[in-house]
């Protein structure tokens, strides 16, 4: 039986770029994850393929836990619960080593005022991966500390003590953790003991219900938007909908006279209103007469032009063998595009600021307290140590909540009225003033050898930035956002000669991280092209992929997972209906994820009828939680693959609500099956990897069904264009 060991992480081809880029630049993605203070320390991890540490700076059990009078234990989570189930995962890990029942753990958010501090964001599919060992160590240390206290109370050696169900026993002695805590005046911290081996796990890997399910089902869970503190007023802000625009002229007379309005605050790029009710604030905002100064006429066409291979400075991310194309032999060329996209989280960005003298407290739906704190300190008069951030449940993250958001505006409004202010984006602002997933363009060239295997593969792609927003200097120095937007651009398969090259384009609006990071777009291109190459070779797409899984550990895991998916997903099962089947896979931060998709085309509309997902993410803490994430990623992927596209006209995002930004609904729900690979490797991420294989698997299934190769997302629009062109 294999034991869990830290595996060497497959890194970028460092020799190719480190000499010219220098270490500071690698910090771009780290900056969004960690904030400024910790970038340097995180650099080596960024180079190693987005494997970050947790950013948690404090592992004292008394900081993490509180033993309550009812013998429950409060765990203060340094990672935010945004649906990914991290509270439940952490409760399982803690209960495992604490020897308490799962129900005895109450998980709450840590804040800058209480609990373990963190310099990092919640994201990058990194919370379980980075804290899996640490949380068990902290919990085990608390257990030993309680035992040490009990041994002092009873006078016996610690070795005779036993713990189970939150009770310490020794011979005739018996005390609950709460009783020991009550009787102990002076704590002596025990040494961190050895952790239990996987073979002794009682909790990890077993099915657990979510710790937050009940309050969410009762409507009692408190999200950022639900913050309600005494004296609180309501804010609304008029933001410039045009890229980079500022207020040219503004007349706020009517707004100021509007009922319930207490204050108007005008800034360079926005005008804010504070009122007695949300309705009054929003009504007043609609009465502001404003003209904006901005560069007009930027449209989707310009964004597509800016993001085109050949535009800008290329950065080589992979260069193995000699990937020169032999122009005398036949080659396959595939050109792909993915569009701009929105996060469209259900809870719009929201921030409640409470300024009191030199200090300000923010109640926030944020994935990144540390970054918010830094940016607010930089842009207001408040010192970083005087800014307190209290995280709440987030109504959907997906990368959207990794930024500073409306924190600065909320602080300025609260300061202006001297009272707490509840500031909420409208849905239109959530679309037009958010961070858009950048569009991408991919050109792949491939050649086969005489055995029908790929001898040469080139991937050149262009993208906007995902993580450079925080460091504008990074782009001119290194040319392209290869750590984040370039994630997944390298060709993973064993091919003797292969290259990946990224062209960084400039977009004049806020772009950002979106679930899956660069893996989503890059997997669409590479896994669609693998199908095109298989077709050229006359090979079965699954067999063809397996034939290109060489001897590296990751490729062997990919092979095993693909074989299992093919077998359990019924790749070769005879079809009774006119359906197409497609398959695709990715390797994302140590996790292998693969999808088998079945589609139909009914009245020219793509219907995804069945998705079988297989995932190998190391040790699974909570199978129920993993299935939830895989199902959810599948739905979001179907939505983005079939429907979603942000467009631009006259320098503004054109979508204003769910009526003009179609997302998947119940009607679009396929049958979903989830296969979890058993493993004894340390856990890797789950929230993002399964989103990436779905779009190419759908495109491949459509090709199998109809012979139509769709090379751009969203696929329904691409199919519509295909029919339009063939009708003419």
């Amino acid at each position, binding site marked *: 039986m294999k034991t869990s060991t830290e595996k060497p992480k497959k890194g970028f081809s460092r020799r190719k770029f480190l000499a010219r880029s220098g270490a500071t630049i690698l910090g771009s993605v780290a900056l969004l994850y960690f904030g400024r203070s910790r970038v340097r320390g995180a650099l080596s991890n960024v180079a190693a393929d987005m494997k970050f540490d947790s950013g948690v700076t404090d592992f004292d059990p008394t900081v993490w836990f509180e033993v309550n009078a009812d013998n429950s234990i409060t765990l203060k989570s340094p990672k935010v619960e945004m*649906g990914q189930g991290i509270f439940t995962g952490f409760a399982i890990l803690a209960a495992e080593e604490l020897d308490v029942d799962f129900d005895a753990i109450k998980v709450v958010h840590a804040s800058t005022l209480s609990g373990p501090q963190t310099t990092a964001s919640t994201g990058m599919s990194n919370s379980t991966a980075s804290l899996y060992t640490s949380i068990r160590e902290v919990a085990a240390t608390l257990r030993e500390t309680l035992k040490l206290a009990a041994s002092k109370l009873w006078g016996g050696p610690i070795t005779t003590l036993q713990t189970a169900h939150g009770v310490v026993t020794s011979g005739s002695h018996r005390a609950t953790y709460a009783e020991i805590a009550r009787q102990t005046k002076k704590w002596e911290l025990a040494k961190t003991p050895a952790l239990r081996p996987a073979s002794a796990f009682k909790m990890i890997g077993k099915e657990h219900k*979510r710790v937050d399910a009940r309050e969410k089902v009762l409507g009692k869970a408190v999200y950022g938007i639900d913050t309600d503190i005494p004296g609180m007023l309501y804010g609304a802000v008029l933001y410039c909908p045009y890229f980079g625009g500022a207020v040219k002229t503004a007349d706020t007379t009517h707004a100021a006279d509007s009922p319930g309005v207490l204050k108007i605050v005008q800034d360079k790029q926005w005008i804010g209103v504070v009122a007695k009710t949300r309705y009054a604030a929003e009504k007043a905002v609609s009465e502001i007469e404003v003209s904006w100064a901005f560069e007009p006429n930027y449209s989707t066409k310009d964004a597509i032009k800016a993001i085109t291979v050949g535009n800008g400075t290329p950065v080589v991310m992979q260069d193995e063998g000699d990937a020169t194309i032999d122009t005398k032999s036949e080659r396959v060329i595939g050109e792909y595009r993915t569009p701009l996209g929105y996060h469209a989280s259900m809870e*719009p960005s929201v921030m409640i600021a409470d300024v009191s003298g030199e200090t300000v407290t923010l109640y926030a739906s944020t994935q990144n307290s540390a970054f918010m704190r830094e940016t607010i300190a930089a842009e207001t008069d408040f010192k970083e140590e005087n800014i307190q951030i209290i995280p709440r449940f*987030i109504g959907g993250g997906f990368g959207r909540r990794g930024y500073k958001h409306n924190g600065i505006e909320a602080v300025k409004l609260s300061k202006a009225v001297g009272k707490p202010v509840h500031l909420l984006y*409208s849905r239109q602002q959530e679309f037009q003033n958010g961070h858009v997933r950048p569009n991408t363009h991919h050109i792949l060239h491939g050649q086969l050898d005489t055995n029908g295997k790929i001898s040469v593969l080139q991937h050149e792609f262009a993208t906007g930035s995902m993580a450079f927003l925080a460091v504008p200097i990074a782009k001119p120095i290194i040319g392209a956002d290869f750590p984040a937007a370039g994630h997944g651009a390298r060709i993973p398969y064993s091919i003797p000669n292969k290259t990946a090259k990224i062209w960084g384009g400039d977009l004049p609006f806020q772009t950002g991280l979106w679930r899956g990071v660069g893996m989503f777009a890059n997997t669409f291109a590479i896994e669609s092209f693998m199908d095109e190459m298989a077709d050229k070779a006359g090979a079965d797409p699954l067999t063809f992929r397996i034939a290109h899984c060489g001897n590296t550990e990751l490729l062997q895991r990919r092979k095993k997972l693909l074989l299992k998916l093919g077998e359990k997903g019924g790749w070769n099962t005879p079809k009774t209906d006119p359906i197409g089947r497609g398959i695709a896979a990715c390797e994302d931060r140590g996790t292998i994820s693969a999808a088998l998709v079945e589609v139909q085309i009914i009245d020219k509309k793509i219907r995804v009828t069945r998705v079988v997902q297989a995932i190998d993410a190391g040790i699974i803490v909570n199978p129920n939680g993993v299935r939830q994430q895989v*199902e959810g*990623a599948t739905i979001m992927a179907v939505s983005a693959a079939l429907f979603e596209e942000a467009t631009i006209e006259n320098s503004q995002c054109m979508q204003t*609500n*769910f009526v003009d930004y179609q997302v998947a609904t119940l009607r679009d729900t396929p049958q979903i099956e989830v296969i979890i690979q058993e493993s004894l490797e340390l856990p890797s991420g789950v929230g993002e990897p399964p989103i990436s294989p779905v779009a190419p698997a759908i495109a491949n299934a459509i090709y199998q069904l109809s012979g139509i190769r769709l090379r751009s997302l969203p696929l329904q629009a691409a199919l519509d264009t295909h029919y339009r062109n063939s009708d003419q």
Partner: protein
Amino acid sequence: MKIALKINAEASTFEADPDMPLLWLIRDEAKLKGTKFGCGKGICGACSVHVNGELVRSCLYPAHMAHGKEVTTIEGLSKDQNRLHVVQQAWLEVQVPQCGYCQPGFMMAAADFLEKNKNPTEDDIKNSISNICRCGTYPRIIKAILLAAQTIKHENIN
């Protein structure tokens, strides 16, 4: 104007702008935060409540129209907190919520749907409820509604 209404069987009177959406009256005046703001245009369904037993998207429903009526929110869906509404039981059993933000609206829609559909198929559910969930809990929502329908049937037989 003075708006007098019953929320979750409790009579209350609020002084509010008559055109203010019922959503803000429920959330900010009655302080019941389970009903959520999602889109403000009646599209996503996060703000769904029942008014006199009818399913309503409260972000578009002017507060004055609720005057003299009975409003039920997620907090009042179960008349007895010790015995949850069949929809909430099913939601727990199937472990539907992820971020959970849209779920109160979905449960209010599901409760209304089950009042009208005693023997629903998967397609009935898909074609009747148009709420939006961005975490992608749809497969479990379908499962939970079918489970709740089964439970109702069994309860009616026994």
